[in-house]
């Protein structure tokens, strides 16, 4: 057993656990996007950033890839972590503003502005589909291509791959494929409609996906917050 500290509480982790697994075992919430149980950790979305160490030497690491170490001091909710997380959400919003998952994250973590140019690439390169295809579906039909700003996920030569069995696993797991609710502000970079109601449907009405119905039909998302 490994003994370490998370948010000042002494916790015990098993050999081979990551910080994220340890924190989740103890019920501490760390948001993730590119992490999925059953797929290898990737550390691409940087939403699960936590601060390790203390004082001026504290640094941010992705908890989904960092192994639990003896005597490690972890903080999951410092100002630095929260700011970094908000910045990551903001950056992802600029790339894929039509994703429901990212819009929900923005509302949940209080991201109310987006200062970047909207790029509408509809892919945040989290690599979930690539890992899903390879590890769970044994397909290896899609993968990363090019590099830098041209990096993209596609099949070889952008043609229908012989390896692809049309299982749909990549679409199932994609966080950017589910379109956001077509609420009152569908054209803007940030919806934030969920922030106007109390309680937010994110935490309480998880199954009520209003994108399946007409825009704002249930009416909850247009109700003003009582001040």
């Amino acid at each position: 057993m490994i003994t370490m500290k998370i948010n000042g509480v002494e916790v015990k982790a098993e050999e081979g656990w990551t910080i994220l697994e340890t924190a989740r075992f103890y019920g501490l919430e760390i948001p993730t996007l590119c992490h999925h149980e059953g797929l290898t950790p990737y550390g691409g979305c940087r939403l699960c950033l936590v601060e390790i160490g203390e004082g001026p030497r504290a640094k941010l690491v992705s908890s989904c890839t960092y192994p639990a170490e003896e005597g490690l001091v972890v903080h999951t909710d410092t100002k630095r972590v929260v700011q970094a997380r908000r910045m990551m959400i903001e950056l992802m919003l600029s790339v894929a503003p039509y994703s429901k998952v990212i819009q929900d994250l923005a509302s949940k973590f209080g991201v109310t502005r987006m200062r970047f140019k909207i790029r509408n690439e509809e892919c945040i390169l989290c690599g979930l589909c690539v890992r899903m295809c390879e590890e769970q579906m044994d397909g290896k039909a899609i993968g990363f291509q090019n590099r830098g700003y041209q990096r993209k996920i596609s099949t070889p030569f952008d043609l229908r791959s012989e390896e692809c069995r049309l299982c749909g696993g990549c679409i199932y797991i994609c966080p950017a494929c589910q379109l956001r609710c077509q609420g009152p502000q569908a054209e803007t970079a940030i919806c934030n409609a969920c922030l106007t109601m109390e309680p937010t449907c994110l935490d309480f009405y998880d199954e009520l996906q209003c994108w399946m119905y007409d825009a704002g039909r249930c009416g909850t998302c247009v109700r003003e917050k009582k001040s």
Partner: protein
Amino acid sequence: MSVHQTINLDSLQEIVERHGYNKNKLIAILQDIQAVYHYLPAEALKTLSKLLKIPLIDIISVATFYRAFSLTPKGRHVATVCMGTACHVRGAPKILEEFERQLNIRRGETTEDGEWSLETVACLGCCAIGPVVVVDGDYHAHTSIRKVPTILGRYRK
């Protein structure tokens, strides 16, 4: 004339054999294939994936990651204009524009007759002799707009 060659799979087999069917030598194998065809033909990559028993997408990932590999046919001559800082301040962008004008193609493209490809590179490391233009491995030092026709003429026959 086109640089398209019929894909000779025997030569591919020979290249892979020379590297001992070793998956770890993928980049070296791709370089050898590129040396034969001047680019990486789709057919060759598909066969390579079967010979080496690695997924095609992994080969594509490597081939598209490195600038040295091209999936589209390259010209018989490749002119590479250095766009590094030292060359840039000495007028490399103007030289590149002159090449584009003379060859009537844009950077990264190949002329229709398959004779010329125009590339840019971030830095060649020989900043003292800049602006540098490399044609088929020959370094042309201290180039200027006026020297561009001379450089092109040397390879045009």
